[in-house]
């Protein structure tokens, strides 16, 4: 018997499957709708807004006085020394974060994981500042870095190193490093627990075998442990870079970008341009530039890890 046409039963089942599929589609849309609407309204619209505004000149107050100026803002941005200076500060900051926070917390995690006495205590203490608001930490730091009554200078004088006393936050050379030290001390605990959780998944047998073969602890760290936690290591490195370029709270509270822009970052410059200078169009162009910089960092980082992973 040739079954050229589906039996009625089969046809009915297919129709009901189709109906079921249509129903799941509507259910899915209904489930996604609240998230989608909020996300569109308060994330996507502002993103598009930032792009559109970056081609305008506007004081942000009077809608009638908004004028399209083409690429003027971007031409200005390329020539704006203050922007490049701010961006350079972000690069310096990112370098400090990479060495002292990312790499430092890797070593700290390795030491704790290896079983230093008091490891649990160090873990709890190092992570504690992460839960505190960065504003509170920055304000506390001001007490320490303050020039005349600050605790750091006081300590230096007490131990006879008064010559090293600095106006820290008021000095061109030391403002940015002081902010960086505060930021790193607050946040290295987060990188540390990411590394610790990665280390707990490392195959101990390989390390033991290498130890039996007489490999030094340093060789094991470089040759076995680091390669096997590379995925998380690359996430922590990327987070360090991205957060260095998004830096705002700590700088804003501690120095406001000063003295004379010596600790300005892209975001503090953006904030001042927008809300202090009422140059909404230009500030939007700075925001778009930041977006591009972060995108490039993410792509480069992804490429690098992928290439290494393949080789």
């Amino acid at each position, binding site marked *: 018997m040739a079954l050229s046409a589906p039996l009625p039963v089969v046809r009915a089942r297919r129709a009901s499957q189709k109906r079921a599929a249509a129903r799941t589609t509507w259910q899915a849309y209904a489930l996604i709708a609240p998230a989608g609407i*909020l996300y569109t309204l308060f994330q996507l619209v502002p993103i598009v807004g930032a792009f559109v505004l970056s081609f305008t000149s506007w004081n942000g107050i009077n809608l009638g006085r908004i004028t399209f100026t083409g690429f003027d803002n971007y031409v200005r941005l390329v020539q704006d020394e203050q922007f490049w200076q701010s961006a350079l500060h972000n690069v310096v900051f990112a370098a400090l974060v990479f060495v002292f926070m990312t790499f430092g917390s890797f070593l700290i995690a390795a*030491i704790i994981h290896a079983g230093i006495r008091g490891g649990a205590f160090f873990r709890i203490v190092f992570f504690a500042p992460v839960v505190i608001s960065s*504003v509170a930490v920055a304000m506390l730091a001001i007490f*320490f870095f303050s020039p005349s009554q600050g605790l750091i200078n006081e300590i230096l004088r007490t131990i006879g190193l008064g010559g090293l006393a600095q106006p820290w936050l008021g000095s061109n050379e030391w403002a940015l490093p002081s902010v960086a030290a505060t930021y790193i001390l607050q946040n290295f605990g987060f990188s540390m627990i990411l590394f610790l959780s990665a280390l707990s998944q490392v195959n101990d047998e390989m390390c033991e075998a290498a130890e039996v073969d007489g490999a030094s602890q340093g060789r094991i760290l470089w040759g076995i442990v680091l390669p096997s936690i590379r995925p998380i290591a690359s996430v922590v490195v990327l987070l360090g870079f991205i957060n260095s370029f998004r830096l705002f*709270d700590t700088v804003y509270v501690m120095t406001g970008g000063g003295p004379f822009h010596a600790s300005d970052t892209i975001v503090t410059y953006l904030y001042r341009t927008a809300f202090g200078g009422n140059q909404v169009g230009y500030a939007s162009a700075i925001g778009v530039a930041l977006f591009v910089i972060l995108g490039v960092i993410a792509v480069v980082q992804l490429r690098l890890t992928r290439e290494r992973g393949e080789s």
Partner: protein
Amino acid sequence: MKFARFSLPARIISYIWLGGLAVCVLFPIAWLTLSVFKDSNAIVGDPFAFPTHFSLDNIVEAWQQGDFGRLYLNSALITIISVTGILIIEGAAAYAFARMKFTGMAILFAIFVAGQLVPSQVIVLPSALQVSALGLSDTLLALILQYLSWAPFAILFLRAAFLAVPRELEEAARIDGAGVFTILTRIVLPMTRSAFATVGTIYALWIWNDFLFPLVYLQSSENFTIPLGLAQFQGSFTTYWGYLVGAIFVSVWPPLLVYGLLNRQLQDRLSFAGSKG
């Protein structure tokens, strides 16, 4: 690796380094905690001296001047409403992405994921303009709506958690006649509870400590959150250090106490999230 097998200099350096760092972290907290009991002159004049008499004036004054009762209420309201909303709204979307097939799924998901790459600092300015255009400037509602739209991380993370629930379990329940609601409440949610707890913890920290959006959205002090209210102290009481110390003290200790109670769970959750993110 075994710490006992480190060379002697390496062990000594390790202890000095970690011990020194612990001092760097603990000393400011200890200094804050002792100084809060001293008057302004003693804080500045003799910063390392132990307080001679324990006065609660700084704490009480800072609490009243800064209206910290109001600040805590605002921060708590915003955080609780936003985090609860995020878990429900983003959880629902994540479930659809994990379990249902529908037209446009790949594109919609890609759009959500792409948002992860856009830093909030880029959207803060246009979003402030938008909020005032909507007539929502200087309201807690504007902040809550902004936080509810922080979807990418929650959706990515919760979707992964839903995908880890074996499909067979749900299908078996369906064959036994269980409805969507029963399957969700009896099978799916209990199995993804820890992922929800992780997302809730991370967002609570982000929202509680957020400074940028309150700074650009809010103008009147009765709407301020803790970081914003605290930052106001810096400008207004620069000369009166006792108030400043008091304000930092009352903003720092409650979260630290919560951390002290929950530190193990908190660390496990966050590191788990970091390894997935």
